[in-house]
């Protein structure tokens, strides 16, 4: 389990993460959602044990048991994928597992391939958590690897659409704070439009429709995506 207790991070006087409390279990699939500069990356770096919080504590067993895929993984560009792997281990079959050509030079790799190389480096340590920072330009192969990962998964991304099928729990961040933490079903809403008004209601509730039916008011039910819910309720908090 990864536990963050009252964690804050301050860079040059400005707060990137403010008093975050989290428990992430080994079987959980968590999506950390937020707009640009909301503190997702810093929070993930702290959860991975790469950055120390300014305040609070992050408890984790062993850094090596957390496979961390940074937003832009960096490796020595002039060496081959196999050589990068050799720095850590000589178990090159992990490169085949993530679908990488060992003889390819790092400078010739796409961002997606670099992310898979990051994963391959961690696999010999049998990680029980996988932390992925940003899912932009991710191939279906990488997505499939994340889906099949046995253990806790934390994915940071700027929208829910791209990672919806990979997660069960959503943490929404805004201005460094956690503004939503719950199951992804908590972000399923519908909009009920009538006359010149609209009401947002959770998808599994229908009290508004019943009330409007009783009053004989005509209305329209519109399905909204979780991203629209995120932007409407949480992004600007």
């Amino acid at each position, binding site marked *: 389990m990864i536990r963050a207790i009252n964690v804050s991070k301050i860079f040059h006087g400005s707060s990137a993460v403010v008093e975050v409390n989290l428990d992430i279990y080994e079987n959980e699939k968590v999506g950390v959602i937020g707009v640009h500069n909301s503190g997702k990356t810093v929070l993930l770096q702290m959860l991975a*044990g790469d950055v120390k919080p300014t305040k609070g504590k992050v408890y984790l067993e062993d850094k*090596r048991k957390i496979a961390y895929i940074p937003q832009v993984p*960096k490796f*020595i560009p002039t*060496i081959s994928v196999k*050589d990068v792997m*050799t*720095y850590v281990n000589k178990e090159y079959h992990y490169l085949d597992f993530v679908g990488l050509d060992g003889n390819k030079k790092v400078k010739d790799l796409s961002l997606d391939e670099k992310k898979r190389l990051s994963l391959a480096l961690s696999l010999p*340590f049998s990680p029980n958590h996988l932390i992925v920072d940003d899912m932009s330009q991710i191939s279906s192969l990488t997505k499939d690897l994340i889906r099949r990962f046995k253990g806790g998964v934390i994915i940071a991304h700027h929208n829910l659409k791209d990672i919806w099928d990979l997660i069960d729990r959503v943490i929404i961040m805004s201005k460094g704070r956690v503004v939503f933490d719950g199951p992804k079903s908590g972000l399923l809403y519908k909009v009920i439009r009538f006359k010149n008004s609209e009401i947002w209601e959770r998808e599994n509730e229908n009290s508004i429709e019943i009330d409007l039916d009783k009053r004989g008011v005509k209305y329209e039910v519109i399905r909204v995506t979780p991203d629209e819910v995120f932007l409407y309720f949480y992004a600007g908090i």
Partner: protein
Amino acid sequence: MRFSYIFMQEFKRSIVFVFLILIALSLSLIAAQILSESISVIGIVEGSSYGIKVSGYVFDFQGKGVSSEIKLSYYNFTESVKTNNGSFYLYLPVAYIQNNTRINVIINSFQKNVNLTLTIPNSSTTFAFSSLFLKYYSSQNLSIISVKGKTFIAVDPKQENSNYTIFEINSDNVNLPLDVNFTYNNFSNTLKIPLIILLLFFFSFIDLMDYYLLSSFPRGELRQIMRLVGTIKVYVGKLIAEIPLTIMLSSLPFYLFEFILIGNDIALILPYMIASISFSLGVYGLAPFGSKNMIYYSVILGFYIVNLVIYDRYLYSLLATLLLIVGYIKLRIS
């Protein structure tokens, strides 16, 4: 096991820079070749109302006599002599007015032309000139030049009892002329300048090599590897992999220079070897502060170390190795 993997990977990367050793060796060779074109002359001149006598020996950097033409001129009177083995004697039968006039001794040889202007304060004086020497001292009654493996001494026979033969010189039987105030500090060494120029070249080579090999620290290219195998293993593994190349770059060119010009005298080049190894370790410690910063700070470090060498305090340059710890701490906290 992983430590050896890191070492091998980094060693493979650093081996590419062997060409720098070849360039450094070429530089040493060129410097030694240029300097080996030097000549030295040592001798004694006597001026009296009977005439001016000059005798001496012209020799190369190895102490071998050089065939040359020696010309003595005093006002409009000239006398010249040719020598094949370097030894010469000249007599100009004109009256010499003491303390007042100068004589010119011109030496023309295949390597170099030398023009010496001498005054004779008393009846006689020793003289010496050398464009390359390991040890040099010149006064009225005693002149000394040391070149590769040989020391030439000119003394005024009137001031020195030379009626016995010395087979082995030691502190008991050295008999210096009475008015010579002679200490080791009187010796100077022209080879210090080319050696320091070479040292500066090698510093720039080390900088060049380190820019390519160590920039991976500040660029974060080893961050994930350090996260998994530990910072210390990567830091030390990389350092150890670089050391053989640094030692070769710091010693082989200096050794070649020494072999050609000095002979087997490691003590003379040891300060330069220690200085360049210290510089290399210091720059390694600066790497985590950023690629450009590493180069900027290394220039300052380089000048400090060169100054320490100039003032014979080269052992203090070993303090630069403390930067290794500073670099490690910086890497850990960033």
